[in-house]
Every structure is written in C-alpha cells, then in structure tokens.
C-alpha cells in the first residue's frame, strides 16, 4: 500500500502542477475549464490517498468535498459561462505563450528553492512534494496576471486556490475540516459572484475583456 500510495500521491501532485502549466499554454477558454476539472480530480486524489494513509476520516470527507466542488460544481458553473460565447479564445495574452512557459519554468525552480526549508522542517516523502503546491500557486498567479479575459482570470484564481490546498494536504495532511469547508465555500461564492459580474459586464459592454475597463478608476 505504501509504495502504491507514494506513487499515486507523486503522480497526482505532479498532475496538479502540470495542469496549471498547461493552462498557461492553452488559450481556448473552454479548454481551460476542462483543465480545471482535471486539476480538481488530481487534487481530490491527493487528499484521498493522504486520508487512507493517515486513516483520517476528516481528510476523507475533505477529499469528497474537493471532488464535488472543484471537479464538479465549479467547472460546471464556469462551463456554462464559457458556452455563452462559443469559440471564445484568449486574444494575445500580455506575455506570449512560449515566454510564459519559460517564466513558469523559472517559477517552478524558485518554488523548489523557496520550498526547501519546508521539507527540512519535517523530512517525509510528502513534504518533499510541497514545492509543487507552491509552484502551482505561482503558475496560477502568472495566469491571473497575463490573461485578458475575465473568465481566464477566474481560472487563474482557482488554480491559486488549488495550489494552496495542495500545499496544505502535502504539508500537514490537510487543515481541519471546518477550515477546508470554509475555504471551499469561499471559492464557490467567488465563482458565483464573478459569474453574475461577468453576465452584467457582457450585457453592459458586450464583452469581458478587462483591458477595456481602465477608464473606471477614480
């Protein structure tokens, strides 16, 4: 079990990061939502393996919660928004795709360097993976900063949240259930609010390109 568990956790954690980086590569908004669903599955797998390994019922419930919200409800909600304008592609991102992939590589390296002390605190197999969570956060942030369309930015925000969740699973076998519950509900709320906001934006301005909004400051 232990060997299989380690292998699964390695695979799933790497998958979370890989999906985040893939998000930087894809420009089709609907493809981004699909990637987000995939990331939710991988994250739930990490939580589930950690729960089985630690015989932790709370973590098991968390895994189910993650599966339902991050691989289910949220992608479905975002998918509905994405379907409103079919074929919506990200125009030119602020930084082009090859360049952002190179930056992502640098960010992963930074995460590994910055995460090393975390591993030194408690040298186990799973804390060695903690830099992956950090790297996911940074990749999500890069997505958030470089994309022009609001929906892509929401995806970036959710990738950041997934990265934080991954870090907590790997470092401390998850935070208490109540905290996780609160965090998840927060994400859900953000998605619902932003969905309403995007609907309004589309009705008012005919698009959801955030670059057109710079006149709104004071």
């Amino acid at each position, binding site marked *: 079990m232990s060997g299989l568990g380690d292998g699964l956790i390695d695979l799933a954690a790497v998958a979370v990061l890989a999906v985040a980086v893939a998000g930087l590569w894809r420009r089709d908004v609907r493809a981004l939502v699909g990637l987000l669903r995939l990331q939710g599955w991988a994250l739930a797998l990490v939580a589930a393996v950690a729960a089985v390994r630690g015989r932790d019922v709370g973590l098991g419930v968390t895994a189910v919660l993650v599966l339902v919200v991050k691989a289910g409800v949220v992608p479905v909600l975002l998918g509905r928004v994405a379907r409103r304008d079919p074929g919506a592609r990200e125009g030119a991102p*602020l930084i082009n795709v090859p360049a952002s992939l190179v930056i992502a590589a640098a960010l992963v390296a*930074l*995460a590994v*360097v*910055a*995460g*090393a*002390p975390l591993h030194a605190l408690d040298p186990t197999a799973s804390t060695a993976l903690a830099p992956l969570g*950090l790297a996911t956060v*940074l990749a999500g*942030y*890069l997505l*958030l*900063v*470089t994309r*022009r369309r609001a929906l892509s*930015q929401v995806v970036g925000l959710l990738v950041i949240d997934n990265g934080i969740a991954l870090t907590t699973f790997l470092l401390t076998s998850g935070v208490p259930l109540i905290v996780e519950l609160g965090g998840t509900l927060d994400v859900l709320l953000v998605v619902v609010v932003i969905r309403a906001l995007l609907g309004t934006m589309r009705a008012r301005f005919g698009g959801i390109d*955030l*670059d057109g*909004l*710079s*006149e*709104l*400051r004071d």
Partner: protein
Amino acid sequence: MTLLLAGLALGLLAVVLALASPSRARVVLAGTSGVLAAALVGAAAVVDLAGRTTRTVTITSLLPFAPLHLRLDALAAAVELVVALVAIAAQVFAVGYARGRLRSRTATVLQGLFVLALLVVPVAGDVTTFLFAWELMALTSLALLLVDHERPSARAAAVWYGAMTQGGAAAITLGLLAVVRITHATSFASMAAARPGTGVLGVVAFVLTAAGFASKAGAVPLHVWLPRAHPEAPTPVSALMSGAMTALGLYGVARVDLGVLVEIGRGWWIGLLVVGVLSALFGALHAVTSTDLKRLLAYSTIDAMGLGLAGLAGAGVLRAEGRPEIAATLVVGVLVLLLAHGAFKALLFLAAGVVERATGTRDLDRLGGLVGLLPRTTAAVAVAAGSAASVPLGAGFVGEWILVEGFVAGLGRTAPGGVATALVGLVGVALTSGLTAVAMVKLLGVGFLGRARAERPASGTGEGRATGLALALLALVTVGVGVLPGPLVAVLARAARDVVGSASPGPAGSITSLTLASTATSLRPLGLAAGAVALVGLVVLAARGGSRVVRATRAWACGRSDLSPRMQYTATSFAEPVQRVFADVLRPTVDVTVSHEEESREIESVLAYRSRVDDAVERALYDPLVRAHDALGRRARILANGSVHRYLAYGFVALLIVLVALG
C-alpha cells in the same frame, strides 16, 4: 476604589443607556448616568487625596487582549478631579443644550464613551490600559467633531485633528515602548522604580512621549489642530476637549516624563521649558487678536497649557539641579492651574455655546450688549474671565501665583543654569498673564458689555435651567478655589511630592492661608476676600452718603448714554495696539477696500477695513509640508493607471520578492 469602579461602571451604563433608550429619554438618561459616573469618580479622587493610600485593581475579563490595570495614586486623583469637574458640568449642560444631531444615538453614545475614556486615562496603571484609553479618547473626540459633518470647516478641522492626534498617539506609543524596552516593565509604578532615562533610548523615549503629550496640550508647533478642532466641536464636547483633554496631555508629561524618566538630562527639560513659554506667548498673542469667540478661547487654552508645560519643565530642571522641593512647588502650581483652567475654560466654552445659540454668531465684532439678553451667563463669564486673567480671588490667580513663587525660589538658590531657567519661566508667566488679561477684557467688554452691534431676534434667550446650573457650578468652583485654596493645595502637595520624589513637606495650606515652604511666602485669600467685601461696602456707603444725583448708564460705554453701536470699540480695534506692537511676530494681513460713488470719484461710499492674523507657524511649517505631501500623492497616481493587470502584477511581484528573500 469601590467608588472609582462604581463610577466607571456608571460611565459604561451611560453608553448602554444611550444605545438602548428611546430617543425622547436618551439624552436625559445617558446624561444623568454620565454625570453620576463623573461625580463618583470625582468623589473617589477626593477620598484618595484626603487619605494616604494608593490603590490598584486589575480587571481581566473586560477586554479580550489584555487585562485592565487601574491605579489611583495622588497624581491620578489630582487630575481626575479636573476631568470629573469638567465632565459633570459639560454633561449637565448637554442635557439642556443638545438639539438636532447632538441628540442622535450616535452622538450620545460617542459622548458617553468620550467621557468614560477621559475618566480612565488618569487611572490607567500600565501601558496597555493607558494606550487603550488614550486612543479611545482620541477616536471618540474625532468622531464627535464630525457630528456637524455638513460644515466644510468642521470636516477640515477633523482632518487636521485626525492627522495630528494619530501622529501624537503613534509617538506616545513608540516612546512608551522604548521605556518598556529599557525597564522591562509595563506598569508605571515598576517603570519608575527602575529609574530609566539614561542613554540614547532614554532620550528617544523622552522626546517622543513629550512631543506626543505636548501636541495634545497644544504646544507650539504641534498646536495647529487645536484652534480648528475646539471651536468646531459641539459646545459640550469643546468644553470637554479644552478643559479636560488638554489637561491629560500635561498629565502625560507629569506621569511619564517627570514621573518615570527620572534620570533624563537637564538640557532636555530646558528645551521643553522654552517650548512651553513660546506656546504660552503664542497662544496669548493670538487670543488677543482673535475675533471669533471660540477661536479666542482655543488660543487661550494653548496659552494656559503652555504655562503648565513651562511649570512642569521648570520642575524637571530644578529637580535635576537638586532642588526637588522647589520642583514640587511648581508641580502643585501646575495642578492648581489645571483645575482652575478646567473650570474657567469649560465655563467660557459653554457660555460661548449659549451666546452662539442666542445670537447666531460667534464673531465678537458683531456681538456686544449681551448683558441685557443673557444676564446670568454674563455674570458667569465675568467670573471665569477674571480667573483666566489671574485676578485675585479667582482660581487662576492661585495657580499662577504658586508658579511665579516657584520660579522666584529657583531664581535665588540654584546654579546659573537654574537661574536662567527660572528667569525665562518668570518672564514667560508675566508677559503671558498680561496678554491674557487683554484678551479676557476684550472678551467680556466687547462681547458682553456695551451696546449690541447687530440686530438680533428677541425671542428665546437660551438660558435654560440645566445650562445655567452647569455654568453656576463652574463659577462656584472658580471662586471657591480662589478664596479657599489652602485645603486643595495641602492635598495636592502630596501628589507633587510623589511625582518629583521630594521628601520635604512642600507647600502647605489651611482654611485661611497658603504657605510655600520654598520661599517662605504666604497668601491669605480669605483675608483678601474680607477686605474686598469691606472695600466694596465702603464705596457703596460713600456713594449713598455723597452725591444724590444717580445717573445710570451702560457699562463699557465711556459713561455716556448717547454712543451709537458703531462708535464703540470693536474686537479688532481693541486689539489693534497689541497687534501693532507685535506686528513682526504676528504678521497680520490688512485689507482696506475703498469703493466710490458712481457720480463722483470724490465721494467714497464704502470704506471696509479688515485685518486678519494667520497662524505664522502654520504658514511657515505646515503649508509646505502639506503641499509636498500633496505633490507626492499626485505623483504616486502614476502607479495606479487603472489597469487590472498591473494591480495584479504588483501583488505577484511582491509575492515573488518575499519568496526570493525567504529562499
């Protein structure tokens, strides 16, 4: 101590009542509870001063972050007397005075909290409690200033006050943290026991705390908020701010700088003395030239607090010179001055509120002849103005007399440094008293005596029962302290000895006399009062026995009844000689506007003369500061160009920098 706790509990109850009671009963219920709270705290202070014990109590469960430490020692009791007196009078007044916004739930709650904070500050026993109460006091008074937020001048005053008071609180916090760092203690008693004050950290602590407290007491150049905030606040609040809150600034200097930082060098005290004397002169000069009633009072607060600061700083110098008994005399003088100032200044501010409501203006150039409209208020103002101008038998005279005697004692028996200090102090007190007298004569003569200068509605005088009671109480205390200062000084001497650590008995007093050990002089105010009464009686008798022709004219009208209102002195013209003498310091702006008749250039239709005295410190120091700050702010808008991506990138870059710095 039970009395104190009961008083503070009633203060809390006042806040709860203000929150919960229906709007009709709100002001009366909260006001009554607040008055009782202040009365109980005042009684606790009296009991403490009469007895000889210092009591402490710790309340653990009231605040979530730290226990409250209360400590009632002699100094705290002495200051608590001032605060309680002003709080009683202001709240009684408010019950009769509050209209409109001032009756709202927010305003009543804030006023209750403000009074409570004022009552807690002097009895705070450790740094946390002190800072908590201090900040509560600053914030509630700031919010009360905004009760009339529709007036632009009130909003501008709030901005100035907010910036200055928070800057001051930050300085005090840092200074107290430095003291904690030196002494490894947080209660004032154990801090003082460690005798800090040496080294760089001691100097830093002294400068920061002295600057913070002095700014609360309106010392130049940190005074700019005071002439704006005190006049703009609602009347009961301006009385509280001017009578009690500024006194707490001096209390801070006495408690922390004089009481805790014992080993600080003499030079720093000399610096503070100069600041105090300059503030006193500056405030007195501006009080003389102000024509706005409340602004005049605000500047005269700066002058009284400047004298107090000079007294405390003089005590610091003389203690460092090895004359703690003279230092104790000066501290007693300051404490008496604080009580006297609390009484007369609160009275004058409350009376200014009555005047403003009755006439609709605060401009002395448009007032006059109020004695007919507001006879009782005028009588109270006369008592207070006399006390402020240091006329004997007023409380203010006692305080200034002790201060002068203290400085005179320092003149005779110390090293050259002490002599110079005492000389500066003496000259400061003398010149300030003279100028203050001019300002007060102007206030009473131009504002209340003579003939009315403008038409005013005859209906509704505004002299209600509650407001009259508040003024009478303050006038009574003013005269009472002036006639019978002995017992008060006797108990205050203990507080002063505690503060400066003097062993000798210091000033002593009985019912009939007041003796200062340091100069072997004494004051017999009761005899003076008897003499004054006898003299007045003689004059009246002589008048009756002599001429039978009785001619009744108005006061302040040159003994004539045919003067028109425009022939009288105005506030501006009365101050003109002083303004000319001090023109180099005051730098007044004078506008003479001449407009001609249309038919002929030879005939002038209107000649308008306007002179205005702006705050020179504000013009030279604060205007460039504000402009630079403004320019910086405008420059900084380049950072915020409206692009969401740029804002997100700022966060991202910050995160990366943190990670790189950690990794």
